């Protein structure tokens, strides 16, 4: 029962990303070509609202559902890992037309060939885990 709410949220997320065409390879291509506002509107409005929500959470010292204080831990700042890792992800995002969430939502939509990208993504994550100590962070 504890997990039902996460399942429901996932369903809402999957429906929304499908209905707003965020899982479409074409929309990602169009975004990186700056040929439509759609994706910028989606991400931009989510971030603007997200900033307001995050500020309200912090300023009202909101508690979680179970009554614990909400802690949003700051990310340790550096350039290398975020820039290099980000560029590598960006290359793959524009190629597959899908970031990790949409990859799984596409499976639900019956685009099963994306399972190959998911399997390869798991391998990529595993390889990162194996060589992370050799990479600049």
């Amino acid at each position, binding site marked *: 029962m504890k997990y039902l709410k996460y399942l429901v949220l996932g369903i809402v997320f999957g429906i929304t990303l499908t209905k707003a065409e965020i899982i479409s390879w074409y929309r990602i291509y169009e975004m990186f070509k700056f040929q439509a506002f759609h994706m910028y509107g989606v991400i931009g409005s989510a971030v603007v609202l997200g900033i307001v929500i995050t500020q309200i959470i912090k300023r009202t010292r909101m508690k979680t559902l179970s009554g614990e204080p909400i802690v949003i831990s700051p990310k340790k700042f550096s350039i290398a890992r975020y820039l290099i890792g980000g560029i590598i992800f960006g290359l793959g995002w524009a190629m597959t037309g899908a970031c*990790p969430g949409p990859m799984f939502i596409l499976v639900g939509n019956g685009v099963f060939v994306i399972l190959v990208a998911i399997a390869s993504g798991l391998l990529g*994550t595993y390889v990162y885990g194996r060589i992370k100590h050799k990479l600049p962070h």
Partner: protein
Amino acid sequence: MLEAIKQPWPWYVAGPVIAFVMFALIYFGNSFGLSANFRNICSVFGAGKSCDFFAFDWRKQLWNLVFLAGTVLGGFVASQFLMSDTSVAISEATVADLKALGINNPGNGFVPADLFSFESLLSLKGVVFFVVGGFLVGFGTRYAGGCTSGHAISGLSDLQPASLVAVIGFFIGGLLMTHLLLPHLLTL
């Protein structure tokens, strides 16, 4: 009402829903980050035996895996019951650019049908797009410590400088791929 839901949803519906999902996950004591599930699934498969990075109790991340399962289900529900058609109204300029790159009927369906088929995996092009592309997503997101949900939405919402660097990286990579590499890869 159902007819309206069956139409494509505009950005000003999707963006706020995504922000709400982020809020709900925080309110439940967790955080919004899909790519962490790649690491979780590696751990479920026993990667922790050969690599410390995966040696954690994935059961504590079960909420995120359940959320992920929900997204698959959501995609299924939308595709089965909430779609009147699956054409994507991309701009005229995008259609023209993609036709020039040899894509048939751009915007007809969510993905280019010729590319997103199991037959295409038998070609170099298909292997590059799915095997190499997927690898870059899995490797890059973990290196950067997050993807679109973790950095672009959650991180920027919290005004985290690290996330801004990551998002700039996402765009450098995405623009390089789209403008310089895709024209060659699509015509492989």
